[in-house]
């Protein structure tokens, strides 16, 4: 699986993608995370306007067998949520790095991105976890 090079990744298996507008970013869970969860059947999203703190839970992605909290990769305010997932949560499986995005946030401090993993670092991190 390809992890997009212009995204940044967390140890909790979220990705964050800074948008061209320079002020917002999309957030989702990684291919590895959805693969570990299996068929996603439910996504719990925050409300627009919620303030997210880097590292704090903001929702959950659930498969038949397990529930996984989602954590904010960086701090910011929720400006949009992917409401399509409420009726089509399987998009998280089908296109985790694209149509399966969870929230859009306005970035409070772009410097927080620097502490996150690059695509190649994350790919190695996910591969190591799979071996265990």
């Amino acid at each position, binding site marked *: 699986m390809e992890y997009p090079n212009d995204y940044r990744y967390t140890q909790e298996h979220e990705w964050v993608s800074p948008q061209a507008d320079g002020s917002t970013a999309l957030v989702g869970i990684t291919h590895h995370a959805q693969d570990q969860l*299996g*068929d996603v059947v*439910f996504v*719990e999203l925050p409300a627009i306007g919620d303030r997210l703190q880097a590292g704090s839970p903001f929702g959950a992605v*659930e498969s*038949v*067998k397990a*529930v996984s909290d989602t954590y904010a990769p960086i701090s910011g305010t929720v400006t949009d949520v992917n409401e399509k997932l409420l009726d089509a949560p399987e998009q998280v499986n089908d296109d985790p790095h694209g149509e399966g995005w969870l929230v859009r946030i306005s970035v409070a401090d772009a410097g927080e991105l620097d502490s996150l993993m690059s695509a190649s670092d994350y790919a190695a991190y996910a591969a190591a976890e799979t071996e265990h």
Partner: protein
Amino acid sequence: MIDFGGWEMPVQYGGLVAEHKAVRSAVGLFDVSHMGEIEIRGPQSADLVDLVCCNHAAALSVGQAQYSGLLHHAGGFLDDLLVHRLERDRFLLCVNASNQTKDFHWICQSNGLEAKVVFASGDYDQLAIQGPSALPVVNRLADRDLSAVRYYWFARCRFAGADAIVARTGYTGEDGFEVYVDPKQSQQVWEAVLAAGEDYSIVPCGLGARNTLRLEAAMSLYGHEIDERTTPYEAGLGWIVKLAKPKFCGREALVRRKAKGVSRKIAGFEMRGRGIARDGYRVFSGGDEVGHVTSASPAPSLGKNIGLCMIRADLAQAGQPLEIEIRNRLVPARTVPTPFYKRPRP
């Protein structure tokens, strides 16, 4: 793969939901070799089984199986199990993997009779073939017509080149068979079942689907609906308690419990609000905490989020509004009749 009582077992092979649906619509194959086996042999074997189990083993014919409970003296479950009468004086008990050592010692310690207790888990692997097409699949492999074997009966026969016990039992709510074979032959039998089932779209199934299937059928899982602190009456399993038997472990405690009535009980529920309950979540009614979720999951066959909970007995009848605490939020639910899923009868 997960560690399950020392066994490395797959949660899923291809995908939990696909495996679950294959069992409901066609046929699935499970490797349940982790299950424990204990044999009781000897002239008083029926007496010993009847002493340690709450259901009536002596009433079984040779070739018949029975769901039962191994209870301690206060009436709580040490384990739940299937009792098979192999011969007049020989019984095979199929017990939970995580309890097998405890069960074995308990039965040995209770044994003052002319009976021999044999720890036989190493003598058996177990494969389960479950689903509406299970019968034609097993009939391709057995040396006799297994359609003659009724529900909760078994045949001892040749099966895919092995000596086998083929029981018409299961843990999915579907028609199906559980096949006990020598571990040396189990891989060959596994492969033969997959090959024989190809025409019926057989699918190998993992522990994940085993759990969602049994939950839809509202079958108890040890450590969830039942444990050492739970009596059969609380678990809705009063039917396996035969108080007419003059003596068995737990009988006196259960006589008292039955007279007193239960204060908590297992109930089925479905979510009314958006959210999925999970094992251990707290259950509320009118602001009061009234119990906890014992097992819960999305139900792939039903398109609902369901569960079983242990709650105050006065709330356990169907139609009661409840709330389940999901990530610090109370989400509406409602008690419903169980089983959640019943297979269509021909």
